[in-house]
């Protein structure tokens, strides 16, 4: 009896997943059309490390000017996915296309139109903030470097420590400087990996506000990997939830909340992370 019920649940989950996939395929349209109109197109992307799948056949497309959250626990494959989008890691199979350029082979066609921010990379500590920004501005061929640095310093409130070595800044100040570096070339594609990790709530909120402002002003496409549900809920119009290298769910925050019958994304995330999503779908 129990066995038959379990089997029915499993079939139901499979049917629900199939329907969700079909819905996404239909809304995405034909592959070529979608790729040509997407800012980022990820298609059946796989990354294996010594036979273990860090990313396991994910497909998604980001529309120009959209802001999307990539959610997932540790080891879900978020950072590897972002690294493949940036052309830093070569996929085992599948394709990544950014602004029409296939990554990593054609990365030099688009790297100057992209930028990123992550707490896992740092700026040289002995160089002052101004020196660091000026070097990167030159690497990105920014016109009027001094003017751009002055504008970013005003916008991100860096003026007070612009001539201080980067190594002598607080965590919050370092994040603001990294953000300034990420915005130097006015990127059309902005990739953010845990942009507010280790920041106090006030600074984190301030950073989110600046990101939101930049996205609206420039019409940039933003992909944000985060553990922070409040951040994703506030910033993102679409959420992709990853688990063990796969996409577990992909929708707007509102629809996710409604579908899972939860009040916060954190609860949705926990449902997915602890495998309660399948139970929930089966129950429905």
């Amino acid at each position: 009896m129990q066995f038959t019920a379990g089997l029915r649940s499993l079939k139901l989950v499979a049917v629900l997943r199939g329907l969700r996939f079909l819905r996404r395929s239909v809304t995405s349209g034909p592959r070529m059309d979608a790729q040509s109109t997407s800012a980022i197109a990820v298609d059946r992307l796989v990354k294996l490390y010594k036979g273990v799948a860090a990313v396991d056949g994910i497909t998604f497309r980001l529309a120009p000017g959209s802001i999307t959250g990539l959610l997932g626990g540790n080891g879900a494959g978020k950072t590897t996915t972002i690294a493949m989008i940036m052309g830093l890691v070569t996929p085992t199979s599948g394709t990544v296309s950014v602004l029409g350029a296939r990554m990593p082979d054609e990365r030099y066609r688009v790297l100057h139109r992209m930028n990123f921010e992550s707490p896992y990379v740092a700026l040289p500590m002995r160089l002052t903030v101004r020196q660091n920004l000026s070097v990167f501005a030159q690497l990105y061929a920014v016109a009027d470097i001094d003017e751009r640095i002055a504008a970013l310093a005003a916008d991100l409130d860096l003026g007070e420590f612009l001539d201080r070595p980067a190594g002598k800044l607080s965590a919050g100040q370092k994040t603001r400087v990294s953000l300034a570096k990420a915005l130097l070339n006015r990127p059309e594609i902005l990739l953010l990996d845990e942009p507010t990790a280790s920041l106090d709530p006030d600074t984190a909120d301030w950073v989110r506000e600046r990101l939101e402002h930049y996205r609206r002003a420039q019409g940039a496409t933003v992909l944000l990997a985060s553990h922070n549900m409040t951040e994703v809920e506030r910033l993102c119009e679409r959420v992709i939830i990853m688990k063990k290298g796969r996409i577990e769910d992909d929708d707007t925050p509102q629809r996710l909340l409604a579908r899972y019958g939860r009040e916060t994304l954190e609860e949705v995330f926990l449902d997915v992370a602890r495998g309660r999503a399948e139970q929930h779908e089966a129950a429905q």
Partner: protein
Amino acid sequence: MNASDSGLDFSFNRVAAMVRRYWYLLRSSWPRVLDLIYWPTVQMLMWGFLQLYVAQQGGGLFMRASGVFIGAVLLWDILFRGQLGFSISFLEEMWSHNLGNLMMSPLRPVEFIAALMIMSIVRLAIGMIPVTLLAFAFFGFNLWSLGLALAAFFVNLILTSWAIGIFVSGLLLRNGMGAESMAWTIMFLFLPLTCVYYPVTVLPWYLQYVAWSLPPTYVFEGMRALLIDHVFRADLMVEALAFNVVLFAAASFAFLKLLQSARVQGSLLQTGE
């Protein structure tokens, strides 16, 4: 695929940005500058006094050709410090966790390498020019009096040092900081084999083949020919240059392959141990 797609195009502006970055770093730290001068000075003084002592004891060779040891140590330092200058600039990126920023910027590998080469010359100049002046003050040995021969020695030695530096950088990209010790020690393998302080004929016959396949051997033999026999061996310099072209091409190829492998292995994400 055009040059821009393949990363083969070249921007002097981006090279200048990287040189500026290393210059800022050097300027911000006097211990870094001191370190550039300290060891070459110690080496030169030690070998200089040893040569003086041997000559005072009636060493025939040293009576005939003063400065063989000092000349050898100064040329060895060009080779060793040239590679170290290249590799340390690269290591600075790993130490500061900045490699990710650079690898995701429009900076091409060839521009990165060009900036590292320029910095190796800048670091070498800061370290070696004062030491050559000290060699003249203490031992009356004027390296600059070698003129065009010195230029030929320098070109060949710096090309070898860059080739080794490029190869080591590839290893660092592929294997992370686990390969750091290679940056400090790899050149010492060249010390006995390139016959810095003795002629090639001292080596056993089978090692002589190895020695003659290394470009610096031709330079050190050329230096001894110049200081002892007062003959400039242009043939040796041309042979060294030919070997250097091969070595440099092989190192560049290895670097690109190691970088490609680092992208496959995902090691550019983890540049720590």
